[in-house]
């Protein structure tokens, strides 16, 4: 479904991605691993067209999207729940959710999807008329994911969704991601919660200094010595 081939990307004159290749197949749950600053967020932003200084091929369902501007990528059904949530702080929770469903198909089902999101995150329903900026960190994260779901995505990209969440919410969020995946949405996830994600995912890629150094099944990597030492700190 998503094929990335020899992707290079830079900020100004500083190159951060070097010849990155990976793929995500339809219905899969793929994880990107890597230390801080390895370039995970950069990869995701390259896909969704926010980082423009790049070369290489990004193919989504057969079409090359590498040259598309960001907003057209979203129109393809790739929805990115960004690092740091990036909500619209002065809009209400409900308006934030509505902003998630701007494309015709999603808009047609707006009411139903909102209901589903509220079922997933009851706290959002409770706070639906509050400004998003006044939510606590965890609530904001839920809203960000909810907003992503509103678009009825083909491919859902999540960048560290568990960041700053309480343990119970972390498990909840992972459960939800898993559930979304099982409902047929393809998921590409970046996480620091290495043990947990590796045990859940189908496949994973390991990134170091902007290069893919390893790939494999989740369980398989979990037992890898290098991974154990560098990421699990065992």
């Amino acid at each position, binding site marked *: 479904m998503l094929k990335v081939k020899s992707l290079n990307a830079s900020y100004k004159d500083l190159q951060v991605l070097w010849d990155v290749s990976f793929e995500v197949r339809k219905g899969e749950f793929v994880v990107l691993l890597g230390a801080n600053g390895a370039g995970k967020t950069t990869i995701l932003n390259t896909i969704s067209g926010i980082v423009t200084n790049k070369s290489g091929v990004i193919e989504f369902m057969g079409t090359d999207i590498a040259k598309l501007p960001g907003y057209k990528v979203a129109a393809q059904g790739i929805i990115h729940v960004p690092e740091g949530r990036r909500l619209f702080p002065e809009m209400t929770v409900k308006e934030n959710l509505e902003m998630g469903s701007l494309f015709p198909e999603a808009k047609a089902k707006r009411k139903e999807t909102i209901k589903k999101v509220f079922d997933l995150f009851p706290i959002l329903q409770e706070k639906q008329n509050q400004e998003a900026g006044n939510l606590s960190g965890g609530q904001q994260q839920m809203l960000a994911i909810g907003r992503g779901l509103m678009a009825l995505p083909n491919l859902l990209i999540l960048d560290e969704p568990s960041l*700053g969440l*309480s343990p119970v919410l972390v498990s909840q969020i992972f459960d939800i991601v898993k559930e979304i995946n099982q409902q047929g949405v393809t998921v590409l996830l970046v996480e620091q919660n290495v043990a947990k994600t590796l045990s859940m995912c189908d496949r994973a890629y390991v990134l170091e200094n902007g290069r893919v150094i390893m790939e494999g099944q989740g369980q398989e990597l979990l037992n890898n010595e290098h991974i154990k030492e560098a*990421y699990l700190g065992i």
Partner: protein
Amino acid sequence: MSLFEAKNIVKRFGGVAAVNNLSFTVEKGEILGIIGPNGAGKTTVFNLISCFFPPSSGEIYFKEKRIDQVPAHDICDLGIGRTFQVVKPLKRMTVQENVMVGAFLRTNSTAKAKSKAEEIVDFCGLTKFKDYEAKSLPLALRKRLEIARALATEPELLMLDETCAGLNPRESEEAIAIIKKIRDSGMTIIIIEHIMKVMMGISDRILAINFGSQITIGKPQEVASHPEVIKAYLGDDHA
């Protein structure tokens, strides 16, 4: 008397109480962890202590002096340093200059501030990056810079807000090592963190809150096995 004491503090935003009648003490030299679900009011507690806004009611004492009405900048002078959950680096200043700004609290001499900063930059393992602008650092280092800058003000009480969030296990271990080093130098610390492994490892006591009120306070093991904490915060798989 304890080094720090909060008495029945309340903070309301609009009608909602983010912190609701919370009381706790911190003893000299200990590490107090604060846990609680998202939106429980942890960061708000820090903001109250550092007087970013005044409490709706209640009293806060530090070294037996009441501090809840003093201007925010005096808090640091009194000996309370903090970091921010959402890091706030002084972006276009170098790492060293960031730390110098902290060090200037205790000296007026540029030379002294500089040497002090160098010492602390080294202590936090940032020497390699001391001439880089703060905006070019990755998150892990920015968080460490927050700690370094707060340390430079020579606090007696240091408040750390999710300094390990977003770090991978390996990096958080490095962060923990630094925090332990700080404690060993005799500083008192209040720390907020969601990663239980970290909290269990370094806290002397843990305060668990929900809806702005205390659930329980005590030894890490006791708190972690408190049924209400499990229910509201840890979830069943942690039990």
